[in-house]
């Protein structure tokens, strides 16, 4: 009987002022804290300032667009005028309206592809590091196999054979992220799995699944956040690129990538039909990348913009420590 050996409370119960149940399971929302800290650095502010207007435009725009994005409202490539502030496109549709309705699909699909890439990549990376040896070899060689294809070539092949299905595009872009994410997370995990608290959990004979989810992954928050931000940037670029070459979002639906492609011909007549979507993609990707940079710097302590946290234990207080 395992119970017998347990240190049961003595006959006279000692006062227990805080029952364990009263303690919130996760008081330490590390990732929200990192986000909040990053948003207060200079880089973070610049990143948000670039990114947030674009995101707002993409999601609020469809409700405010002055014209239907598919209606032929004027002559093709009409220059900007009072009723069409950015002129019209190759099929005489309002550029501003198409710009305002053409972003949400790109953002949602990029986010979904990022989620696929980071979840699959991180799972492979953590498992390779935790199980080591043959599991490591098999998983990482498998990842190398994906890496051997130039990013997206495989996806492009599938899309051109099966057709431009939304799920297929998301999957293709997501899978193309897996190798990089897996490598980064594996090397970060290698560090964590060697730490003593992981060994302590193993000595309790906790199942590997619980050691990985409970002990290893919570200590990978920083690299996971940085990877997510970085992969989101790449996803947006890839998605817009796919639309540009005609394998992404299909006309007549409005899309920034599609717009750049179809309006190339009228660059001289109405340059805004190309410049506007190009600039907006630029703002978005530079913004996400800058904010990711801020996350990385805050999380690794390069940039300190932390509100005074609860003071660490007195003897371990920084500044007074002898070493």
């Amino acid at each position, binding site marked *: 009987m395992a119970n017998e050996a347990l*240190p049961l409370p003595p006959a006279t119960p*000692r006062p227990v002022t805080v*029952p364990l149940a009263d303690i919130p399971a996760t008081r330490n929302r590390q990732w929200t804290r990192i986000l909040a800290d990053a948003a207060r650095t200079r880089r973070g502010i610049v990143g948000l300032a670039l990114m947030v207007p674009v995101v707002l435009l993409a999601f609020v725009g469809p409700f405010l667009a002055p014209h239907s994005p598919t209606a032929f409202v004027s002559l093709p490539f009409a220059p900007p005028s009072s009723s069409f502030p950015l002129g019209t496109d190759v099929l005489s549709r309002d550029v501003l309206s198409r710009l305002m309705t053409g972003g949400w699909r790109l953002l949602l699909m990029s986010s979904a592809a990022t989620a696929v890439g980071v979840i699959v990549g991180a799972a492979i990376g953590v498992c390779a590091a935790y199980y080591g040896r043959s599991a490591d070899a098999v998983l990482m060689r498998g990842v190398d196999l994906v890496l051997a294809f130039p990013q997206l070539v495989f996806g492009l092949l599938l899309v051109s054979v099966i057709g431009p299905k939304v799920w297929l595009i998301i999957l293709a872009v997501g899978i193309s992220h897996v190798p990089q994410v897996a490598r980064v997370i594996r090397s970060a995990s290698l560090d964590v799995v060697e730490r003593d608290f992981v060994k302590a959990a193993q000595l309790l*004979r906790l199942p590997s699944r619980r050691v990985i989810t409970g002990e290893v992954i919570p200590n990978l928050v920083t690299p996971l956040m940085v990877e997510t931000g970085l992969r989101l940037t790449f996803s947006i670029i890839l998605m817009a690129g796919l639309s540009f070459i005609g394998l992404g979002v299909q006309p007549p639906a409005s899309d920034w990538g599609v717009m750049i492609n179809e309006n190339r011909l009228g660059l001289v007549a109405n340059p805004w039909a190309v410049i506007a979507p190009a600039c907006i993609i630029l703002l978005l990707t530079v913004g996400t990348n800058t904010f990711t940079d801020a996350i990385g710097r805050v999380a690794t302590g390069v940039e300190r913009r932390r509100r005074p946290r609860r003071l660490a234990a007195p*003897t*371990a207080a920084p500044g007074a420590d002898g070493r």
Partner: protein
Amino acid sequence: MTTPSAPALRVTGLNVALAGSRVPVVSDVTFEVPRGMVFGLVGESGSGKSTVARALLGYARRGLEIVAGQVAVDGIDLLRLPPAELRSARGRTAAYIAQDPASALNPGLRIGRQLMESLAAHQGSSRTDDPRSWIQQVLREVKLEPSRALLRAYPHQLSGGQQQRVIIAMAFMHRPTVIVLDEPTTGLDVTTQRHVLETVNELCRTHGVATIYVSHDLGVVAHMSQMAAVMYAGRVIESGPSAEIFGTPRHPYTARLLSSLPSYSRATALAGIPGHVPAPGSQPPGCAFEPRCLISVPDCRLAMPDLLPVAGDNHFARCILADQAASAQPRRAEFREQAQARSSPAGALLTVRQVSAFYGPKQVLHDLSLEVSEHECLAIVGESGSGKSTLARCLVGLHTAYTGELTFRGAPLPAGIHRRDNEVARAIQFIFQNPHSSLNPRRTIGQIMSQPVQQFSALPRREQDQAIAAALLDVALEPSAYLGRYPQELSGGEAQRIAIARALLAGPNLLICDEVTSSLDASVQAVVVETLRELQRSRGLAMIFITHNVALVRSIATTVLVMHNGVVVERGAVSDVVGRPAARYTAQLIEDGARYAVDDEPADRPVLPREGQA
């Protein structure tokens, strides 16, 4: 420029504070060191001793700034020098030797090249005329043969002791006026430490260098230095001739620090100092030590006492009760080791037969056998590389590359924790060396503690909470104050006690402690060792206590096993092995350690049972 009467180093009113907030970290440090003298600066972590050491070279760690005071070397205040002159003074007139020799040397450059660079750093020095012969002479001074092989070696090809000697050679190369040694031997084994210290001592005397020796190790400072200062919470609380400070301490903190040291000559309980050093900015208005002091009076809370002269030559203490300091030392029970050792009728709990362990092709344990009976506390002593930790990892199931036979309670013990059942995993518990790395930084103490309970017991939730609270009280921690905190918010001693409580919650029969106090200060080590000893006795646990500190063995174990290079060199009752070592290696280990021990207690001190401490 040198005033004849000026000491080599004079520090006046040195104040270091957190940059920006101006919260004091080091306050009013004043001392002077004449040429040829070794001055000891002692303190535990958080005392500010390393901050002072760096400030002596006009340097403050990032986040700190030197806000007031003078550091005069040969009468010139380093803190007022323009940056370029300060840079040239560093190394030439004031040199610094850091704790970790491996990180002070560039791993990518050969030793000879680094010595040349260090010599060339101060052009125009008369030594640069014939650099090669000068480097050879400096190396001979630190007892290194300046062979071609040494000069062409990379740092990793040298031992820790050799690396530290190279660093010392660099420091002495320009014949500085002042040398600051910041914990120079902390990472070294006792024997290496002794050789390095002897070399430093000799060099300081022959070249008339004013030496500041910074260390947490009272024994080493007591033997190395003529004068010393004890620091606590950023202030010097006692200073004077080393013999007086460590012989008749006048500050209660010094007295109790001495009581917390284990003794080579007697088996005594250890009296630690419960509580912790106040953090910068949260110091009490009165004496900083008052909350932990056993003899404090209400007046102690009024104001920080001044550093006042006390009886004796040049001896100062920052305490209004300086004349009563001796009574601040709690009585230490001396116990009889024989009485403690039970005749073990219970029989062997764990048997290790002819175990050889490997790391890849390298064999680290050779045909090792041992037995641990119920209720026995076996100490395993050895220097780094002796294989003692590998043995522990084999026993708990973290290291599987071994041959031989383990038996636990009469049944064979499979290699590797995954091949053992829950009952065995529960019965053998392990405590890691580094408490902070053994606790998941992303979990609260409550969550960490509930893991063993949930895994090994079928108790209802309510009783699990009770068990956790009881385990915390057993290691003298108040449950309500700790359950919701994170490991990084705890001091080393608190974290290690949490680790002990976690192991206890499994309800073990055998507790394996791997160097559990080596990362802790002496006063905290004493508290942890006493906690372990009382738990071991009250619960009748069998325990394997692994350490490199022979003196500590006397305070906790009944039997001891001495290891060297993966082989057992001696085993037996603690009193026999430590008192009358049979093996030459053991004798050497004890001699090197005891050389720097402070044995403060008069032998006729009454033998009394120690009172429990909170």
